[in-house]
């Protein structure tokens, strides 16, 4: 006699057809539902877009013009290597976002979905990397010193098609013409600075430095923090105890003094500033990741993954990390905001980026030196931009924390 007679296939009714809805999709919808989050995200995306296309928005060189009887394309010819990198990577990221978006909407079989995404990512990433190497090794930056507007008046340039803003970040009004510290006019919507440069153009070009420092140094911090925190959280015990002491040592380093010292000794180098902010700023992320890993390492699915014989890197970064990523994302956005402030402080103190590179902090500095008149209109615009950008990142971080947290996220 047997007590068990039910056949397993018959009892489980076919599951109702549910939409493919990941945790991230649910959190994403909760995030998107609030207007302030949409505005903040829009602001950050707008800043990103401006950074990518700023050479086409604010440039003293025309898109195209007939110069001395020959049709030329000075703006395209003048694009620097940094401009190209921004364009290439901007394009790659944008296309991949679209691919993710589109494939996420279609009901695809699992292996199709994977292979489509992986193929696109490989293709775009590979192409962008190849282009980066080519550009870095082949092209050299060309400094265009021609004043097209003067040439047009002189008659050597005709049929010129200019960008909306006819001033590059470094192009100056002739110094002789007494157009320094000009109050906003129709020609210079935000006025001019002490070197006769258009403040609006510099404001737009300034987005680049802000994002370069904000994102690159935070990415450096992210990589170090995640690796370090993951290992400490996984190997508890002595590794953890010693590791945390090292974190405290790094936390004790005063960032601004380190940067000032570095700049005093080695001069201003944008890349080194990024690296310094990155290698001192990872401790918060490491703490978060460690705490998450301490929690996750004792979960059943990690035991199950171990019992499945998965190698350690897979367990750490494939099974544990995605589950512990939420505080990391939040602290990433806060970190970007913090880095933007750090850069502004440095540039304001005059030890940030090398002039004539535009930066909001540097623009604040130019608005008024001690003993001089304070030109409030020059300080207002970059001040507002710094405030809004930092504010937007903070709103995003705050709201992501709420959206991710199931306790505050009242979705269903």
């Amino acid at each position, binding site marked *: *006699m*047997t*007590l*068990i007679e*039910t*056949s*397993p*296939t018959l*009892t*489980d009714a*076919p*599951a109702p057809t*549910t939409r*493919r*809805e*990941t*945790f991230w999709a649910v959190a994403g919808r909760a995030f998107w539902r609030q207007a302030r989050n949409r505005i903040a995200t829009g602001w950050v995306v707008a800043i990103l877009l401006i950074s990518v296309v700023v050479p086409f928005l604010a440039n003293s060189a025309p898109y195209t013009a007939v110069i001395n009887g020959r049709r030329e394309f000075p703006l395209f010819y003048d694009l620097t290597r940094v401009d190209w990198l921004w364009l290439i990577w901007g394009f790659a990221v944008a296309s991949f976002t679209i691919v993710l978006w589109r494939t996420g909407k279609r009901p695809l*079989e*699992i*292996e199709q*979905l*994977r*292979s489509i995404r992986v193929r696109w990512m490989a293709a775009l990433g590979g192409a962008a990397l190849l282009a980066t190497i080519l550009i870095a090794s082949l092209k050299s930056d060309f400094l265009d010193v021609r004043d097209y507007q003067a040439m047009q008046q002189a008659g050597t340039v005709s049929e010129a098609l200019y960008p909306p803003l006819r001033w590059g970040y470094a192009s100056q009004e002739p110094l002789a013409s007494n157009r320094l510290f000009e109050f906003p006019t129709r020609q210079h919507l935000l006025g001019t600075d002490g070197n006769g440069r258009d403040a609006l153009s510099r404001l737009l070009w300034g987005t680049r430095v802000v994002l370069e420092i904000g994102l690159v140094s935070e990415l450096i911090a992210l990589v170090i923090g995640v690796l370090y925190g993951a290992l400490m959280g996984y190997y508890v*015990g002595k590794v953890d105890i010693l590791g945390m002491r090292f974190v405290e040592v790094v936390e004790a380093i005063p960032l601004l003094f380190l940067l000032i010292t570095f700049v005093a000794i080695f001069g201003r180098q944008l890349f080194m500033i990024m690296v310094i902010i990155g290698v001192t700023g990872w401790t918060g992320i490491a703490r978060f990741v460690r705490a998450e890993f301490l929690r996750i390492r004792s*979960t*059943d*699915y990690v*035991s*199950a*993954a*171990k*019992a*499945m*014989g*998965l*190698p350690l890197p*897979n367990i750490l970064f*494939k*099974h544990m990390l*995605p*589950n512990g990523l939420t505080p990391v994302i939040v602290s990433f956005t806060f970190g970007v905001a913090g880095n933007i402030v750090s850069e502004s402080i440095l540039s304001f103190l005059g030890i940030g980026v090398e002039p004539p590179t535009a930066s909001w902090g540097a623009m604040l500095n130019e608005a008024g030196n001690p003993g001089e008149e304070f030109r409030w209109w020059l300080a207002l615009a970059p001040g507002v931009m710094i405030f809004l950008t930092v504010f937007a990142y903070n709103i995003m971080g705050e709201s992501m924390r709420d959206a991710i947290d199931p306790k505050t996220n009242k979705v269903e």
Partner: protein
Amino acid sequence: MDEAPVLEISGLQTYFYTEEGVARAVDGVSFSLYGGQTVAIVGESGCGKSVTSMSIMRLLQVPPAKYVGGKILYKGRDLLQASEREMQKIRGGEIAMIFQEPMTSLNPVFTIGDQIIEAIQLHQEAARHSMSKAVEIAEQALRRVGISEPRRRLSEYPHQMSGGMKQRVMIAMALACEPSVLIADEPTTALDVTIQAQILELMRDLQNPAGEGGGMGILLITHDLGVVAENADVVAVMYAGKIVEYADVYELFGNPMHPYTKGLLACVPRLGEKREDAAGRLFTIPGMVPSATRYPAGCRFAARCTECKGEVRVKEEAASPELREVKPGHWVATWNAPGYATAKMTEPRVAFRRPAAAAVVTAV
């Protein structure tokens, strides 16, 4: 007995070094598991069942755990001596494990398919470089465990499934890699009763004794005697880190010798039973399981033993009774068992497998 067991554990000692002292969670456990056989380890919480199974997989954190002594022979190889690299190959590929909580044993951020396929690509040579082959095997595995529309299920997330379904997925995942031994650590405790029966029968169906090497051996960890009676071929009763009785399922239920086993069986309520207790209460074993850090000298069950007589107790103070073969195929560790004094200590091995499609209902 010519046949060699797939898994043979002899004198396994796993201790935990904690601040309160040394917890002797597993203290000299020996048993063996043959291909196609189901060995059940029974005992109350904290008796070392789970630690035994985790020791076999070497999944315990060292320290605080330490494998102090004994051998775990898998197909003649001592797993306690194997390197971490070798263990990675064995885990999942040779010895698979399913856990108590199907609800939390699947990673919530991946689809079912992602997780099964990852395991398959790791352990199955044929699928290593072929995604479509891996998907095919995964689909078959899901079909074998009775999941409808397996293809579509692959792209579902764990939270879209019920507990029973998840446990099936766990079984499918474990079996997709064709292991020789399956350790099931209370596989049905978290499920409701109707699903429990299905899952257990499923495991039994998939054991496939006709296959090569005599089929898959299942080590069933449970505290549910009903589950044991229905499914096990051989039963090991554990108490305080030791096996106190070891016999095939008919023998154990028909002729229990250790007072602890008798007590466990008496604890099971029966329909229409007339209770001897005046109050009509269900039998309970008096006392508490001793803490693993402070086992008493001598017999660890002495304080709770109902058969313990003064004379025996004196003897028990001196030494802990070891597991002896009091009659062919029946090992027990109590001074009171008939014939214990003259019995020999032998490696506990019972190759018994119950005849197909017959469950023991004598005892429960």
